[in-house]
């Protein structure tokens, strides 16, 4: 039963992402990431034994632990890369703002000369 729930969640997620891309509300790398997440959910719901097998390989006796640890780690990594992207955006905005002030001043100068 749980498998079917996860399958439905994965399927809904995939459809939502494709819808968002279609509407232009999500682009490039973000869409790829979320589609991969949806794909993982679908694959795991169809073959739940994958988790049991992987847990046995790394010596974890209670397989859901592996699933939880992995998902929390991935969420943390994703958040870290988001903040890195935000920092990059902040720098671009700052430099753009400065450049705009400089260009505007130059433009006013030219207008003064032509007056």
């Amino acid at each position, binding site marked *: 039963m749980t498998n079917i729930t996860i399958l439905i969640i994965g399927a809904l997620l995939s459809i939502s992402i494709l819808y968002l891309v279609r509407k232009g509300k999500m682009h490039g790398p973000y869409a790829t990431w979320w589609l991969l997440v949806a794909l993982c959910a679908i694959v795991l719901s169809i073959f739940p034994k994958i988790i049991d097998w992987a847990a046995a390989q790394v010596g974890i006796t209670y397989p859901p632990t592996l699933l939880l640890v992995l998902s929390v780690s991935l969420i943390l990594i994703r958040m870290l890369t988001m903040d890195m992207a935000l*920092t990059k955006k*902040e*720098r671009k*905005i*700052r*430099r753009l*703002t*400065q*450049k*705009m*002030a*400089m260009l*505007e*001043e130059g433009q006013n100068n030219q207008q003064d000369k032509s007056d």
Partner: protein
Amino acid sequence: MKTLIVIPAFNEAENLKHLIPQLLDKVSHDVIVVNDASTDQTAEVVADFGLKCLTLPLQLGAWGATQTGIRYAEKSGFGQVITMDADGQHLPQEVNSLMDLYENTQTNVVIGTFPSRLSYLKKLAWNFFKLLTHIKIEDLTSGFRLYDKKAIKVLSSRQASMLDYQDVGVLLLLLGAGLTIKEVPVKMHDRSDGKSRVFSSWLVVLKYMVQTTTLCIANMGKRTAK
């Protein structure tokens, strides 16, 4: 080489009305005001004196505004930049003290310091930062500084755009580039109105301390020139 005086200003129309005439009277350098998205008449006041004014469409804070002036200086080919506050704390006649030391010693950066203005808490905070970074400078936050061509280049960089305050981060960047920093004692005026941007409320102080400490720790072990 020409020198540019950069004055970052946020809602400083009243103070600039007093400062600009004094400044134009005392020094012959070019002056530019960076208007940090002010909501008052700052831009108009500056224009009335016939000075150039760079108006930022978004507020960037004191350092973002100062860097705008520094980038402008780099683009326009100025040899030195002197930064000073708009609130009248830095005295126009002291600009020459900075220039004199610069011309006599050929150092890359000159900082005008007024050590007796420091409160006990500020001294404590700065001693803590000095301990973390090995910066050998008395006054870390003084915005009364002279930068030479090399320093202008370093501070125009993209990396410098990520700094939030014109103090420890800027000094670390300059020292990391192997530039020399010297201090000169100057007289300063008590703030006529308005308070320090950095030390204004406890929450702001806390944010400043945490961010600057992080910056210091992240920069540990980097090469620091004396």
